[in-house]
């Protein structure tokens, strides 16, 4: 297991999607940095390049302008210690929970005894050991997301990139998954960057919250959230206060017409 999370530094990062017909600027001069083992949330209007930023950090989109560094190195596709979790979980419906969870380890050609040991451990940790032989379609949304997280954690990442991972869950499952994620993040010292549409989710999870403005996506403001993770934080006045501030920032976004 990684003893500590990764550090992330992004400086003046810009990216455009280019097709034969046209060129669309997705993000423009993004700058921020994250300490090891920290958790950041990103909110912003639709099509403001939030997912693009995650894909760049996951090494899936090569960038030309600016800099993005993970532990001082440029992101590589399939960097062993980066994991990406998507909104619709990205689970393979033809594989059982077990086969999904060990997939990353199999791809990395780990020895079978190690795959078995790690797989069993992670299933227990995620509370889904009883579902090992079932298929994703037989699970609830919350359980499917646990499987997706288990699959990512099985490869022992130091950086977890999450793209609206809980958005299709009902309110109750969403809150319990947020607490679950917080617990895992703390226990493992992971660095987490989560893109979300939920203001409460951003405020509950992020030690810093980056508000994006669109379009093209740029950093509008970064909010500090020093009390994150404190007991009963959801009921705390400063949580409500932060949510109001974030809502204000989002509304600013709406009124400045910087939205597609």
């Amino acid at each position: 297991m990684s003893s500590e999370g990764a550090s992330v530094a992004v400086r003046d990062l810009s990216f455009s999607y280019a097709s034969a017909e046209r060129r669309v600027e997705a993000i423009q001069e993004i700058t921020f940095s994250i300490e090891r083992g920290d958790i950041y949330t990103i909110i912003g209007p639709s099509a403001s390049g939030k997912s693009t930023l995650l894909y760049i950090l996951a090494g899936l989109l090569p960038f030309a302008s600016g800099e993005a560094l993970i532990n001082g190195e440029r992101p590589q596709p399939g960097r062993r210690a980066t994991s990406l979790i998507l909104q619709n979980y990205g689970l393979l419906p033809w594989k059982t929970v077990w086969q999904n969870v060990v997939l990353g380890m199999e791809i990395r050609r780990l020895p079978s005894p190690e795959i078995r040991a790690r797989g069993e451990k992670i299933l227990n940790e995620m509370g889904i050991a009883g579902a090992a032989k079932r298929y994703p379609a037989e699970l609830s949304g919350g359980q499917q997301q646990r499987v997706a997280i288990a699959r990512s954690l099985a490869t022992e990442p130091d950086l977890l990139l999450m793209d609206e991972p809980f958005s299709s869950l009902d309110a109750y499952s969403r809150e319990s998954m947020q607490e679950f994620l917080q617990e895992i993040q703390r226990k493992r010292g992971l660095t987490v960057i989560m893109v979300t549409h939920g203001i409460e989710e951003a405020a509950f999870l992020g030690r810093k919250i980056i508000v994006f403005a669109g379009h093209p996506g740029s950093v509008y403001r970064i909010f500090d959230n020093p009390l994150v993770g404190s007991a009963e934080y959801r009921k705390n006045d400063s949580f409500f206060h932060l949510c109001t501030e974030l809502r204000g920032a989002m509304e600013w976004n709406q009124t400045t017409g910087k939205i597609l």
Partner: protein
Amino acid sequence: MKKNIFRQIVSIAALFAAWQFLAILVANPALPTPGNAFMVFFREIPAGLWNHFLISGWRVLASILLSLLAGVPLGLWLGREEKYDRFFAPMLYLIYPIPKIVFLPLVMVLFGLGNFSKIFLITLVVFFQILVTTRDAARNVSQAMILSVVSLGAKRRDLYRHVIWPAIIPDIFTALRIGSGTAIAVLFFAESIASSEGLGYYLMDAWSRYAYPEMFAGIIAMGVLGYALYLAIDILDRKICYWKRL
């Protein structure tokens, strides 16, 4: 399962009832009653019909297998490699709609009158159906699934093995269902010209002798062949794509 078998029996019984009704209504020797046709069918099985059935069955099966072997890898490749697809797609769209049976004379000149020319013609038709379906299915594999597996460190080979290949299998079964119907139709055509064996020949021979009950025995045999193919495809589909029905 029992319910399913019962439903199939009721469906087939309804078909025979309609046939019986139509035969009585038409009252013409060209349309024998199902009772009469089946009597001849069972009489003809040991008298040569079984051999014709086996020959036709082997030709159809061989054609379907060859079409799969050629169509699936090529479809996968074109579906995932856009630059090659851009080159081959116009060719494909030009050839795909041509009724391949027009090539029968050419096929006969090139490959003779034996098994191979018939198998070749059926393969030519079914191959394109499988190729186009596989290509479109490979192209439409969920990007989210691909990205999340790439982020786990998957190389191209892993992607094909764990994501793209399993994702297109249900579509291949759909193509097979459509293809097996077409295969039998083309088989009939291929066997009805310059042929001395197979169900197509048996049918045309009976027709030329005005032996209508025998002709219908041949039609029943073709129906049975098609039904057996569908059943086999269904069983394989249920076994392999178990996850689809959850």
